[in-house]
Structure formats: C-alpha cells, structure tokens
C-alpha cells in the first residue's frame, strides 16, 4: 500500500466512497505489473547458464511469463538469476552488478552452486559458498544441478507469487 500512500491526496481519495477499494485495486495492479514483467539479466556463470538459455529457448519459452527480455545492462533488469558457480575472483563483480540494479530488484539462486557451492563445496579453495555469503539476499532458491528449465519456470512463478504478496508495491 505504501506507494499509493505516498501520493499526495491519497487520504482524500480514501475518504471518498469506494476510494479505499480504488487504492487497493491500483496497488494490486502495480504488483501485477511488477510480477508480470520480470526482466532477467544476461548473466551466465557456468553450467546453469545453458539451462537458463534453454529456458528462454522455444521449448520452454520463458517469454510466456513476460520474462523473456534478457537485458545485458544491469540498469534495466529486475531479477538477477545467479546461474552457476560463484568463484572468489567473481565475488566483487557480482556484488557490483547487484548494486547496479535499480530497485525493486530480486535475486534467484539457480542451481546448487549458487545456493551453497553445491558440488564444489568441499576441497576447493576458490569457490564462494553460495550467493548469500556475499551478503545478497536471495528471494527464491532453485536447487538442482542444474535445475530443469521447468524448475526455473516454477521458481519464477514462485517469485511472482512472492511479489504479489508483498506488503509494499514499491518495496
């Protein structure tokens, strides 16, 4: 409700009969817009990136969900799909990319490597143990090594659901 509250005159609208309803509807409308248009970043790290492209490819077609616009510039993205193993050398780069994204931004950790290091958890000196250890809050975890494209779509729908249930449309 917060974004609408910020608009001057929101209180006035609320006093008008049906105004509250109007505010709620517009709020859910904004959330609907946000959820239906999640543009991911063209950001493939490792194996899972191939499955991410496969999800965009004709067979699974992520564009059906409105999320097919892969933008290369972080400034125009809504969701960062961390697809693959994060290595120590890559840490700063991922943090910077995340910082460059405009709010509201979401993060999907695709694959076990992005969740925890996965198969590369033990005996390796150069793999970061997951996205969260970089201090980036992850919204949806998608386990798998790599996850099936269906699983990524499922995760995307979960993210949409999360956005629709958010308290603050402007976050």
């Amino acid at each position, binding site marked *: 409700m917060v974004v609408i509250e910020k608009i001057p005159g929101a209180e006035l609208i609320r006093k008008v009969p049906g105004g509250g309803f109007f505010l709620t509807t517009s709020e859910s409308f904004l959330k609907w817009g946000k959820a239906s248009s999640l543009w991911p970043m063209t950001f493939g790290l490792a194996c899972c990136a191939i499955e991410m492209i496969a999800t965009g490819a004709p067979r699974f077609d992520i564009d059906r969900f409105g999320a097919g616009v892969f933008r290369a510039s972080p400034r125009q993205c809504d969701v960062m799909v961390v697809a693959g193993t994060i290595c120590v050398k890559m840490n700063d780069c991922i943090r910077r990319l995340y910082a460059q994204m405009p709010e509201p931004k979401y993060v999907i950790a695709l694959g076990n490597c992005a969740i925890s290091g996965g198969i590369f958890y033990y005996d390796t000196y150069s793999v970061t143990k997951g996205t969260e250890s970089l201090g980036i809050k992850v919204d949806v975890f998608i386990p*798998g090594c790599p996850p099936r494209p269906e699983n990524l779509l499922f995760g995307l729908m979960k993210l949409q659901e999360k956005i629709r249930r958010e308290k603050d449309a402007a976050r």
Partner: protein
Amino acid sequence: MIKLAKNFVVGTWSLIKGLAVTIKYFFRPTVTLQYPTEKQPMSECYRGLVGLRPEKCIVCYQCVKICPTACLAITHKQEDKKKTLETFKYNMELCCFCGLCQQVCPTSAIIMTNIYEISVYDRKKLDINLLDMKKYDEWTNTTIK
C-alpha cells in the same frame, strides 16, 4: 562490373533465402511446452530428488561412501548386530543428482524420485531428513495459479 553485379544478385538472393527460412517457421506450429498447464512425463530413470525406502535400508553406508559431494549423512543404532536407521540426512544444497547412490545401493533402498519442481523461499527447507519423506509432498503436488 559483371562481378559486381553478380555479387549483388547473389547477395540479395542469399538475404531473401534467409527471410524465407524465418517466414517458414513463422507459419509453422510452435514447439513450446506450455509448462504449468502441460508437463512432460519424466523418464523412468530420471534423476530427481533422492528418496528413501527406510524399510529396505540395511545401513551399509555404501551411498555415503560413494557420494561425491557428501550430501548424505547417516546415523544408526546398533541393537545386537542389527542396525537400524536413526537419521538419514539429505542435504539437497550439495547434491549433484549424479545417481551414484542409487546405483550403488545393494537393496535399492535409495531411489531417485522424479520430483523436479523444487523451488523454495527458505534455504533451510533444503536440508531434510529422508526418514520423514512427507516433506516431499509439498513438491509432488505442486500446482501454481
């Protein structure tokens, strides 16, 4: 001059051929699987989440030994020669779905289920005790609005 003209004609023709390919597929039916409404059947040997039939397990630790990522952890009780499972920890975060545990299991107590829709909001849900397989129900009956 003749070569130039030939190049021009060949070049233009090649561009038209390219356009022909794309317009051909424009009118062909799509190959898309409409995922949430349509789902493809998983093959028999599909390697989804690891499942356990606790009654079959003889606590031989083969699976733990073979696992390349140490995602399985077993504890057991020893009751005069007979071992019984106490916990069977399965850490999905580390699993690489290689299927080695299933292949190595002498009694096929470990199975690879065909559950593949396993996204979660909370990471803690990924570390589970396989003796309590009910947790999988959340993923097997997934329906999305």
